[in-house]
């Protein structure tokens, strides 16, 4: 079967690029000559000796001195002013001002301002502001602590120094490490090092957020893509980019919240022919069932050939075609060129990666299968967390969510009649009127996805558990935990300090709640000390309500994802004598 042409999706991507291009160079930066190097009132922000990066970088200062600029390097940062500007490098960061602008590089970050933009690079991070948009060939930045993510961004973390934004679709991820931003109080910025993600010789880094050993690694193989399709900016990259738009939109929350927890590689396998003909993985589909299928021997061989440094958690094959052929197995399959391909990837990921059920029976969407408010006939308690047989108890699956109104998403969480292929009135209930696991379609325009096509609260919670099943909050500590000598500043490098809080406990004193990622031991009295840092997911009750790490007793075997919540807390301990 020959794949159809895809004018609609291409038009969408083209429109997206026009939007991005329209925002380029909207915020010209200024140049503030100053001293490079980090200030010593707190822990160093960017670069311990003031420079980092491949082309030379300006330093940071906690006292407000503007950083230096370099003609080919990175703008500096300042705690109270406007950041410097690298003329062809990376914009600087600013604690209270507006980030600088790299004219061809990477926008800077700002702790209370707006992320910068760049013409061909990547926008910066605003820690309490809104991330800027990327340039014509870059991509949007990422919101910071309380900011809003850019709407068109994707891809890996960019920048060689400074609190860089994310790499763009055609941009380049950082190669020599990422500096942090210094805070206004001089307690030092979060300094994370993002090492390059090795997706293999055919790999295309879509999202790089850290070491594969402590990230969920989502690997998407392409099938039916020719050499031309795999070229930079070609069909493969555009189809991936199209899917990422919805993945990181509010519609697919909480993927945006946990964006730094998931690395994504696209694998550009070259096919000499189309799907259903002579493609490398032998993928095709069936119009009647709407299922896609591939030669799994070839698929497994392709995965086994990837670098051993990758720990693959999530497998997907994207078919080069526009048919509505998708499958929700452990290796999920979807047609990348379909208008609703982004929704297909999310729906099938719900099945294959999160083990969610379809939330429809012989009725679908919000207009049928009424809210029974806990009443109705009783049916079987199946394993999937998002369908229940007892509307009074929800089989223990979402009783804590009953009555919660997911505003701007799936609305009231309750017991809606009809789910998991069981007809209305036959004893199977879903948590919300509609959802991503029900009627997920956006009428051909992802921007117009109705709010109720989001994941409902039960699915969202399961998604969080699926992540914690695989990883832990802390990447590393400085110095290594255990017995240490004259440690000075203790530090925990967490996956994302906006998602993970750290409480510090000194000896037997009450903990300092959410005390940041560093602890200065200089103020401690002489003697022996035990310092504990407990890092934990700060998800509030609007996202996670089942925090006991136990499964509903109704689930056969009592096995579920909820037990993984315990992995979301991690404690490290240092001991030393001062």
């Amino acid at each position: 079967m020959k794949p159809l042409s895809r004018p609609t999706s291409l038009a969408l991507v083209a429109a997206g690029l026009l939007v991005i291009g329209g925002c380029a160079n909207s915020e010209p930066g200024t140049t503030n000559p100053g001293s490079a190097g980090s200030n010593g009132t707190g822990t160093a922000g960017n670069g311990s000796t003031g420079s980092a990066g491949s082309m030379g970088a300006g330093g940071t200062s906690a006292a407000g001195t503007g950083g230096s600029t370099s003609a080919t390097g990175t703008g500096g940062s300042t705690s109270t002013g406007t950041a410097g500007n690298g003329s062809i490098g990376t914009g600087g960061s600013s604690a209270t001002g507006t980030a600088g602008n790299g004219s061809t590089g990477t926008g800077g970050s700002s702790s209370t301002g707006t992320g910068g933009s760049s013409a061909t690079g990547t926008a910066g991070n605003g820690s309490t502001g809104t991330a800027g948009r990327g340039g014509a060939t870059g991509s949007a930045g990422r919101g910071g602590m309380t900011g809003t993510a850019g709407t068109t961004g994707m891809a890996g973390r960019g920048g060689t120094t400074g609190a860089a934004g994310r790499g763009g679709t055609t941009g380049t991820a950082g190669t020599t490490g990422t500096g942090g931003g210094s805070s206004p109080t001089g307690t030092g910025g979060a300094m994370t090092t993002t090492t390059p993600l090795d997706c293999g010789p055919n790999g295309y880094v879509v999202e790089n957020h850290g070491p594969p050993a402590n990230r969920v690694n989502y690997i998407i193989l392409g099938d039916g893509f020719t050499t031309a399709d795999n070229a930079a900016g070609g069909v493969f990259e555009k189809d991936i980019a199209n899917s990422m738009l919805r993945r990181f939109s509010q519609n697919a929350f909480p993927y945006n919240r946990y964006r730094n927890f998931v690395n994504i590689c696209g694998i550009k396998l070259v096919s000499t022919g189309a799907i259903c003909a002579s493609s490398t993985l032998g993928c095709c589909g069936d119009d009647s069932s709407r299922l896609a299928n591939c030669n799994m021997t070839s698929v497994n061989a392709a995965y086994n050939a990837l670098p051993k440094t990758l720990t693959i958690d999530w497998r997907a094959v994207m078919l080069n075609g526009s048919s509505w052929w998708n499958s929700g197995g452990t290796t999920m399959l979807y047609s990348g060129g379909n208008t609703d391909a982004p929704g297909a990837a999310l729906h099938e990921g719900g099945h294959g990666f999160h083990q969610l059920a379809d939330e429809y029976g012989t009725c679908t969407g919000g207009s049928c299968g009424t809210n029974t408010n806990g009443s109705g006939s009783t049916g079987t308690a199946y394993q999937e967390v998002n369908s229940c047989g007892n509307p009074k108890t929800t089989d223990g699956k979402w009783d804590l969510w009953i009555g919660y109104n997911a505003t701007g998403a799936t609305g009231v969480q309750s017991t809606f009649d009809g789910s998991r292929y069981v007809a209305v009135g036959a004893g199977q209930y879903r948590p919300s009127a509609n959802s991503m696991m029900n009627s997920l379609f956006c009428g051909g325009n992802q921007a117009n996805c109705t709010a109720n096509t989001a994941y409902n609260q039960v699915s969202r919670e399961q998604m969080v558990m699926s992540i914690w099943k695989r990883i832990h909050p802390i990447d590393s500590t400085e110095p290594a935990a255990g017995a240490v000598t004259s440690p000075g500043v203790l530090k925990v490098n967490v996956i994302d300090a906006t998602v993970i809080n750290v409480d510090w406990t000194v000896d037997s004193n009450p903990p300092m709640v959410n005390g940041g990622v560093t602890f200065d031991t200089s103020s401690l009295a002489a003697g022996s000390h035990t310092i504990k840092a407990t890092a934990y997911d700060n998800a509030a009750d609007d996202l996670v309500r089942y925090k006991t790490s136990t499964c509903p007793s109704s689930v056969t075997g009592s096995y579920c994802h909820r037990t993984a919540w315990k992995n979301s807390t991690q404690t490290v301990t240092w001991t030393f004598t001062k």
Partner: protein
Amino acid sequence: MTPRRWLFAVAGAAAVALVALLALRRPAEEAAASAPADQPAAPVAAERRLPPVPRTPPAPETKPYKEEVVTSDGVPIAPPRGEVVGQAHPHPITPQHERIYGENRFVGGIEGAMEVKDAKGMRHLLEQYRREYPEDDQQLQDGYAVIADCIEHPGAGPRAAAERWLDAHNGSTAKRYVLRYCIEPQQQ
């Protein structure tokens, strides 16, 4: 009894027998038709007897496509081409769908047992998983067995087996757990 009455009597008896036969058959057909909806949770679902799927997928269908556009409830299934406007079922529920989701439940169940280090529970589910999905398309089963061994009998033997498994299954999603339960504990 006149021949005519006898004929009526025979015809009447035949009609009653036919009605009785139909009445007996219908529940069985309905039960069969509703079987997918009644599939219990993973461990019990494993008791279903489905034919094994060949290791390579069947050749693409060549018969003329007959589109199923509307289900019994009148809600359309998303068409295999073009855009969807309004509400639709993402897909019909076919035996193939049921089989895929049945495997997902095994994966979820076994990994749930693994999370609480219930090696016995893992083995119980794995046995059913192997029986129902002998093709092991996701290259998981041997990895789960290795993990159960490592949980139950940590030591050099299971670790060596884990290393051998890792050499041959670099792309398996069980790799993270083989590392976690077999390799990393002995590195500490």
